[in-house]
């Protein structure tokens, strides 16, 4: 374990890229999830179909393929290369936004119909019903699945090592392993622990937000949501 300090410092050099990609990807995911998720519930068929194509198209193709497509095929089509980290955030956001759209749609639909009827009886406009009554309640339901999705996104940032972004996985695999091959076990264990800590940070933040959102609708987070909020796969 003599080289532990070296391992830590080399891996840490990749940390900013991992964190920027995660935070940027999460922000883009949130925006796309709400836009596409609400579009899935639109009364206009055209809007619904466009959103459905986005969701199924991005969920149906492999994220690795999407990454390479944006890095190698898109520049040919548009005529210039996007800054790698931006392209990375774009892929992470586009891909996870498609999954998030279904989370938003499902949560909005889970708000009891009676709440919408209460809002109609008070003559609120369709926009006011959504913003003031439905979404504040739906957001509570979204928190646990979004926590899972964000952890999934964090894990996906490791794929950016394929396209020369020097995040922590690339630091381990390209810089450390060639020099300290016999200590591969320590290097990768350390790397895995770093991801574990980052995912625990995401879960801690999301649980806090869930508590705040649940308190606003006069509820405690359910036992089910607590169990779900522990990083699971997205099918």
């Amino acid at each position: 374990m003599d080289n532990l300090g070296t391992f830590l410092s080399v891996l840490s050099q990749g940390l900013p890229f991992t964190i920027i990609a995660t935070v940027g990807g999460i922000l883009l995911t949130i925006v796309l999830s709400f836009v596409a998720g609400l579009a899935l519930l639109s009364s206009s068929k055209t809007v619904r179909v466009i959103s459905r194509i986005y969701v199924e198209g991005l969920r149906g193709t492999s994220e690795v393929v999407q990454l390479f497509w944006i890095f190698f095929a898109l520049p040919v089509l548009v005529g210039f290369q996007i800054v790698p980290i931006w392209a990375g955030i774009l892929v992470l956001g586009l891909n996870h936004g498609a999954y998030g759209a279904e989370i938003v749609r499902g949560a909005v639909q889970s708000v009891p119909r009676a709440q919408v009827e209460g809002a109609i009886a008070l003559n609120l406009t369709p926009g006011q019903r959504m913003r003031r009554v439905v979404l504040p309640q739906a957001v509570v339901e979204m928190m646990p699945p979004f926590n899972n999705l964000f952890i999934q996104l964090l894990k996906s940032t490791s794929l950016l090592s394929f396209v020369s972004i020097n995040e922590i996985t690339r630091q381990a695999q390209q810089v450390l392993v060639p020099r300290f091959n016999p200590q591969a076990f320590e290097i990768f264990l350390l790397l895995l622990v770093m991801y574990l800590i980052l995912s625990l940070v995401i879960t801690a933040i999301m649980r806090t937000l869930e508590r705040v959102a649940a308190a606003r609708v006069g509820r405690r987070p359910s036992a089910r949501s607590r169990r779900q909020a522990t990083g699971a796969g997205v099918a």
Partner: protein
Amino acid sequence: MPSLDKTVAEPMIVFDGVEKRFGDNVVLSELSFTVAPGEHVCLIGPSGSGKTTILRLLMTLEKCDGGTISVAGQSLSHMTHNGRRVPADEKHVRDVRKRIGMVFQQFNLFPNMTVRGNLIEAPTRVLGMSKDEANARATELLDLVGLGDRIDSHPTQLSGGQQQRVAIARALAMRPDVLLLDEVTSALDPELVAGVLKLLRDIGSSTDITFLCVTHEMGFARDFSDRVMMFDGGRVIEDAAPEKLFTAPEHERTQAFLHAVVDR
């Protein structure tokens, strides 16, 4: 716009040949009746006879499959545009709906808002009332329903009876001409029913709101209403003053229904 005098003269609510089906199931067929301004009308009858559907059609929570429904002379489904009768747009529906308030069986309070939030939401956002004015009105209405001290509570912290009182106050805050009551005491514990019914009687006697209620409380129907309509199989089978309907019902289905309800 009809003149004020004419509005008073014409019925507040008109159902004309209204049809409603859910799939193959005909819930209402060729239903016609009117309710005069300020009149209190109770709808009684066995479950599944279409009573609640009438309120939901009026509140535009359901669309009718035929016939027309009008409130204060304006159709819910059609409007006049350039002298022609065309399907109503959202704005027209909202204009008509502004006159109608509704209290639900399950209260339907918004859990993401406090009691105050529930009461000022629609007045400020739909009627364009100032926040101060809406707050003053909310305080006044909560005092009226006996919950002046719970203005900053969350709906989930209140009992069923308290939640229903808030829901009544919320509907009144919109100053409706018509108030629809959909089995408002059915979800309450028995000991809380009387208080809510007394509140409704007080409101009924101190305002000129037109009431249309679906209820299983025969005592309330009897002393609250000017008229009672007995429903069965999607039709009005008897329509009479409560004294008459409850003491000397003409139709044998009415007799059987009242017999069954009172025996319980």
